[in-house]
């Protein structure tokens, strides 16, 4: 990559940042998102798996919020605060990895379907359309139920059922990018499929991909919790399994509102953050929407 191109990219980036900063909601989302990710990543410096241990639980069962336990304790006397903190690692991990699976499949299929013509494109689009109409939650449930609950199967079940919309989006973008004259020039200069897709198409669609990923992470986190509620879980402490625990142990009838509210609010806040960032990114990147908003 020449220094000119690099400079251009840098410039584009700073323009993009300037645009993004104008979206206050997106910015707020970004702050929350970064904070959540940092907290999850650095959690092992402060706490470890022992916060989920029922044997060494530090508190009384079902005790309400107090100084020692700001968000109260659960049915075994574990601290909800620490559990939510530790659980964020599984929830975010599943969110990110499921989004990654979804985006990688979507990207490969989408760009290939847009770049190549003829039967390959037709077949890829047929497959995409087919996956697009599958009811994703129901399919993910069936897959997870068949393959058995584990972090891996849940990631795959979510990834496999959510990629088609990314593929569609990217195909449209690829078609648009490849219609530009410089692609023609590149082809004339002997650029192969690999060169064109990785050097020209991918950098152009990358920002939208980012926006799409952000939204995917959001929905994957919610899906994980729904799967956990319906009995398909990774067997690790996550926000979804915590909510399932509050349901199994009858937190509502115990009056332990903190046990129900806190993990739910954690999901709400983080998913909102991802969604706001994703929407802001889309608004900045999609010129049509930019004009409108």
């Amino acid at each position, binding site marked *: 990559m020449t220094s000119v191109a690099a400079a251009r990219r840098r410039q584009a980036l700073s323009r993009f940042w300037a645009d993004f900063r104008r979206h206050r909601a997106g910015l707020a989302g970004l702050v929350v998102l970064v904070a959540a990710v940092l907290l999850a990543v650095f959690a092992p410096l402060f706490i470890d798996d022992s916060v989920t*241990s*029922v*044997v060494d639980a530090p508190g009384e069962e079902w005790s309400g919020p107090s100084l020692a336990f700001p968000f109260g304790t659960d*049915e*075994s006397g574990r601290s909800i605060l620490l559990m939510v903190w530790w659980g964020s690692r599984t929830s975010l991990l599943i969110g990110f990895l499921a989004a990654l699976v979804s985006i990688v499949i979507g990207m490969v299929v989408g760009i290939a379907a847009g770049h190549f013509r003829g039967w390959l494109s037709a077949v890829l689009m047929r497959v995409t359309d087919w996956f697009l109409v599958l009811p994703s939650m129901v399919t993910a449930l069936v897959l997870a139920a068949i393959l*058995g*609950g584990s972090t891996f199967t849940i990631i795959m079940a979510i990834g496999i059922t959510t990629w088609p919309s990314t593929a569609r989006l990217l195909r449209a973008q690829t078609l648009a990018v490849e219609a530009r004259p410089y692609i023609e020039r590149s082809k004339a200069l002997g650029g192969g499929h690999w060169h064109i897709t990785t050097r020209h198409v991918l950098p152009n669609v990358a920002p939208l991909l980012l926006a799409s990923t952000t939204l995917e992470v959001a929905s994957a986190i919610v899906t994980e919790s729904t799967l956990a509620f319906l*009995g398909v*879980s990774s*067997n690790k402490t996550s926000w979804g399994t915590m909510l*399932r*625990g509050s*349901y*199994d*142990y*009858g937190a*509502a*009838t*115990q009056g332990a509102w903190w046990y129900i509210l806190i993990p739910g609010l954690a999901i709400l806040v983080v998913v909102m953050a991802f969604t706001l960032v994703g929407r802001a990114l889309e608004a900045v990147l999609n010129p049509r929407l930019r004009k409108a908003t």
Partner: protein
Amino acid sequence: MRKWVARLVVLGVALLLAGQGTTAALAQNPAAGKKIVRVGATQAMDSMNPFLAVRIVSTQIHRWMYGFLTVSDSKTLQPSPDLAESWTTSEDGLTWTFKIRQAKWSDGQPVTAEDAAWTFNRIMTDEAAKTANGPAVENFESVTANGQELTIKLKAPQASMLENPIPIVPKHVWESVTDMANYDAEKYPAVTSGPYIAVEHKKDQYVKLVANPNYWRGKPKIDELQVIFYSNPQAAIAGLKNGDIDLIGRLNPPEYEAIQNDPDIVAWNTQGRRAAYLQINHGATTTDNKPIGDGHPALKDPKVRQALHYAIDKQRLVAEVQNGLAQPANGSIVPPMYKDFFWEATGDEKVGYDPARANQILDDAGYKKGADGVRTMPDGDRKLEFRFSIHTDTPIEDKLAEYLTGFFKDIGITLTTKKLESSKFTEETGVTGLFDLAISGWSVNPDPEEVMATHLCSRRPNAAGEGGGTESFYCDETFEKLYQEQLKELDRPKRIDLLKQMQERLYTDAPIIALYYNNDLEAYRKDRIASITPIPEDKGLLYGGSSYWPFYTVTVKDTAVTSPAGGGSNTGLIAGIAGGVVVIALAGFLLSRRRKSVADDRE
């Protein structure tokens, strides 16, 4: 458009509020003057056809509807007369003759031995009819009827013959059923001979039963029994608290704790019919005695198994895993609720919590501790690292696993937890033998023969590695011999003694280690139910027992009849309506304001 939407919203809200009011008001009418007991269930009926139904809710309802040959005595749980008034056995124990009671089906037809013979013969000859109770007729050679006299010829003597679990159906109604596998028996009112008659079944919603006026013991003291289904167990508990249901059985400890301090509710906590135990892979084999699976070799040593037993603090497990709602097990797999058959270790035989002794046993047997504190096999090759298989999604088992890991660490044994889906769990711990230790449990019937049979050699998987239904891969000569003897022993006290010896053998040889007996946790509303007699009458079960007794004897409070089915008090209704009015007023105000502001915008 906006106006239209607004009207719709207002109409909707008004309608719903009005609806709520009307239903609450109307709900009192059908209930008025009738004595109704509403039982909550977190399981829906799997089938109304007693030949097919296996779920507890279904077998309970069938117990309330149909007569059986015998029923557990309400005090002793011994088989006592039900549809069979009396019976005799031939000298060789192969021919049983029952005298069927002069009673009437709910449609007025007489009950005869023909009905019973038809029921049994159908199961013996029709594969589909075997679904629910096939094993119960496996030993039947022939069943014949003559008037009120039923003759059953057996292939081999069977002392548990009287514990027959098959509901007897009216021949004149069921004769016409050709395809049993696909018959749903959704015909109402059902024709029954028990205390209740099913009159309505809404799928996944409720079953309504009315008292049978022709019941031979006399009509039950209530008019109607409803079984109301909740797919959300939390909603069921809330339903009990709100008064939507009157009784709910089979609670788990957290649910029980949630209601135990409610002033309107009787929290029912008695000994239960379930035993929880550890299953130990002590060298799993198939029926042709070939090893199967990958159990740890150290577990073949009875000393290791005994050391494990000494290392478990059952008191603490009960207190902290079961929240005190269980009884520590000092016996085997028959819970103390069955007084006659219950066996408990005493004296030297009794294995208490004694980690020092456990360490001593292992030291003496040559399992030396390594530098990391983990013991190795006497030949020094393999560390004592065991896997503990539990089910996914069962928080109580998670908790148990954590405690056991701690207990075993104290005696130099590492335990790692392995969570499995239920089907995989059954496969690995019951067929392929891919486990070291596993959690298990069994709900025991009044006669323990069935649970004993799960530890027989023949229950192991066959040479092809299939089938069975073993609970332990146990195959022990002494145990087999005792089992065969008890089958033939028609003298009850002698048979009880044999069954106790079998439990003792299981206890000392330790292919399984009983941990605790789960309590029976149930709850009912004080303001609705005046009295209910459990089965057995001394500290027994209400729902899920082996007799209709509790629901035959239940009585309700007269005052309760006026309580509306919805349970919402009038204050709630008024508050709701007031709230609705406020919402509508607010919506109206907002709408009018917005119209004005839009109007302002126009040129």
